[in-house]
């Protein structure tokens, strides 16, 4: 393979993309007429089935960065790419066992609903929404910057134009179609991504007579035995565990993922939806792993790293090599769709933290009617959407890879511990929650700045002040310790009494909305 049309707008690529945009805008139009009340805007009227939500959860989670990035990582570093992918899956069982059902039974629209269930509304909602917003913003910036560069690589579109297109479409979905449109955008994207990756794997395996051994032999002959052995990704065990904690519990603290559990009618559907999601995401990572190996074998590392140093174009190059320009066009459009769906989910989650938690919960002290709240949510969507576009352009060319790791660390430390303790611990108090959230937030942000990831790689100092690349292990346990100590020091009788009702509602769903 010597020539590639990658980096130029192709007719098929544009055609597939326009088809996707037309279909999703039609859905948005359809959803807009069903999106008037708050339960409709935030939670699609709780009308989504378990399987649909499973696909939508997978759609929210499988970003273009993980598809192109992990395939690329595998193609250049072999087995280490698989280790990385595994970390992104293992949070899902934790959500299933500990979070999904109580969350669905106790809350209404945001995870702050659950944390604030029996504690003092205003300080808790302020703290929880802060954690949610910081997680969402970090993740959003990383996605936007990634989107701009990926679209430039694939279609040759200028970075700023790509950002504006992505931003405008995501605002349109969320603003007019609320959660219903966002959910269906996720479902379509998940089906396209899983379908596209499956076809690509099928075409790859066809080259090897549907025999994985042939493919492994091919790559080990080309790149040596090292390719199928663990390499340099994990050298320091504490570093690896720290990242592992952030990925595992961070997944269980991502606001846009947690919010999805309110779109199903009850806890049973919530539980089923995580099972489907885990299956889809696991299957997706196995496909991605195969695509990485396939592109190393059939395209070759030299070409892959020549086009993009990080290997991000491994999957599109493989698609072109095996399915020609048409399949490349299809896959490029799917990657574009993937970016759009993820940022739409994030924007909705961020907007609801602003409107439901801050505006209604804190400013209006819980006294706002349906109309006012939907209006606030729409204004928040617009503001957050524009902010995402501006930040995407401001951060052009910056190294934002660490932001995903930081978003997971914040989610694991600020969001998860407080949510977990509020569900399971009777003596958890308002002060406990506040200390837990702010400690987790502060530690994860402060320590990552002092870590090799930022202090050395970005700020160009020679020695890190904090030794670990991801602060997860310190900030996660730190948030628990702070929450426990503060709760011990401040007894809250009212909260303890309300725990009884909470327990009944959490376990058997009486009173759930």
């Amino acid at each position, binding site marked *: 393979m010597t020539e590639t049309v990658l980096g130029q707008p192709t007719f098929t690529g544009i055609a597939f993309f326009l088809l996707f945009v037309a279909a999703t805008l039609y859905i948005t139009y359809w959803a807009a007429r069903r999106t008037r009340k708050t339960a409709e805007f935030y939670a699609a009227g709780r009308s989504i089935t378990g399987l649909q939500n499973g696909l939508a959860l997978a759609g929210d989670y499988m970003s273009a960065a993980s598809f192109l990035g992990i395939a690329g990582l595998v193609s250049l570093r072999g087995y280490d790419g698989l280790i990385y992918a*595994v970390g992104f*899956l293992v949070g899902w069982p934790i959500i299933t066992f500990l979070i999904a059902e109580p969350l669905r039974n106790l809350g209404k629209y945001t995870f702050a609903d659950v944390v604030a269930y029996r504690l003092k509304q205003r300080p808790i909602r302020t703290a929880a929404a802060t954690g949610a917003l910081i997680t969402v913003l970090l993740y959003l910036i990383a996605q936007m910057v990634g989107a701009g560069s990926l679209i430039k690589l694939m279609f040759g579109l200028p970075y700023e134009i790509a950002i504006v297109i992505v931003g405008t479409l995501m605002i349109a979905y969320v603003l007019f179609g609320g959660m219903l449109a966002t959910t269906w955008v996720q479902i379509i994207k998940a089906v396209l991504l899983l379908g596209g990756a499956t076809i690509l794997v099928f075409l790859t395996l066809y080259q090897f007579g549907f025999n994985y051994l042939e493919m492994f032999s091919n790559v080990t002959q080309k790149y040596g035995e090292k390719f199928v052995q*663990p390499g340099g*990704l*994990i050298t320091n065990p504490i570093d690896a565990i720290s990242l592992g904690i952030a990925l595992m519990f961070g997944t269980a603290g991502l606001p846009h993922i947690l919010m999805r559990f309110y779109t199903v009618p009850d806890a049973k559907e919530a539980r089923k939806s995580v099972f489907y999601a885990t299956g889809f995401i696991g299957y997706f990572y196995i496909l991605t792993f195969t695509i990485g190996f396939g592109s190393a074998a059939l395209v070759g590392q030299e070409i892959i790293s020549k086009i993009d140093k990080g290997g991000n174009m491994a999957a599109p190059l493989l698609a072109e090599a095996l399915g020609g320009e048409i399949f490349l066009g299809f896959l490029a459009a799917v990657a574009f769709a993937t970016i759009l769906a993820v940022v739409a989910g994030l924007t909705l989650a961020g907007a609801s933290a602003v409107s439901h938690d801050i505006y209604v919960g804190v400013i209006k002290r819980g006294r706002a009617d349906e109309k006012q709240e939907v209006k606030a949510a729409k204004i928040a969507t617009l503001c957050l959407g524009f902010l995402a576009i501006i930040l995407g352009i401001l951060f052009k060319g910056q190294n934002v890879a660490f932001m995903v790791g930081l978003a997971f660390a914040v989610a694991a430390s600020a969001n998860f511990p407080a949510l977990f303790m509020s569900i399971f611990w009777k003596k958890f108090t308002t002060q406990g929650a506040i200390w837990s959230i702010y400690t987790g937030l502060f530690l994860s942000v402060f320590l990552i700045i002092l870590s090799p990831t930022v202090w050395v790689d970005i700020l160009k100092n020679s020695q890190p002040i904090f030794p670990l690349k991801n602060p997860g292990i310190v900030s996660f346990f730190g948030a628990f310790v702070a929450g426990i100590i503060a709760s011990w020091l401040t007894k809250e009788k009212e909260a303890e009494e309300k725990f009884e009702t909470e327990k009944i509602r959490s*376990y058997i769903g009486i009173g759930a909305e």
Partner: protein
Amino acid sequence: MRKGILNSEEFKEIVRGKNAISIILTILELLIYFGFILLIAYNKEFLSQKIYGPVTVGIPVGIGVILMSWVLTGIYVLWSNKIYDEKVSKMKEKIGGEL
């Protein structure tokens, strides 16, 4: 009424059963994943051994972590659908769905 539910044997059994299965499966998942990480950190040689042709031990182990995570969520959902839901609906019937 609330006290009645909380102190009833049925409710205590529901909570005990649910907590037990949640804790056991969570610990299993933690062992599987962090076991995998520690294995990579401390025993790369083991994972680098060939088992079949070019395939190293690490490949089925890595894929296995993904599959086991899914299987564990499957066990949880199956248990909940079969046993937990039935107990909950019996309890709800008894108290009439109101507090």
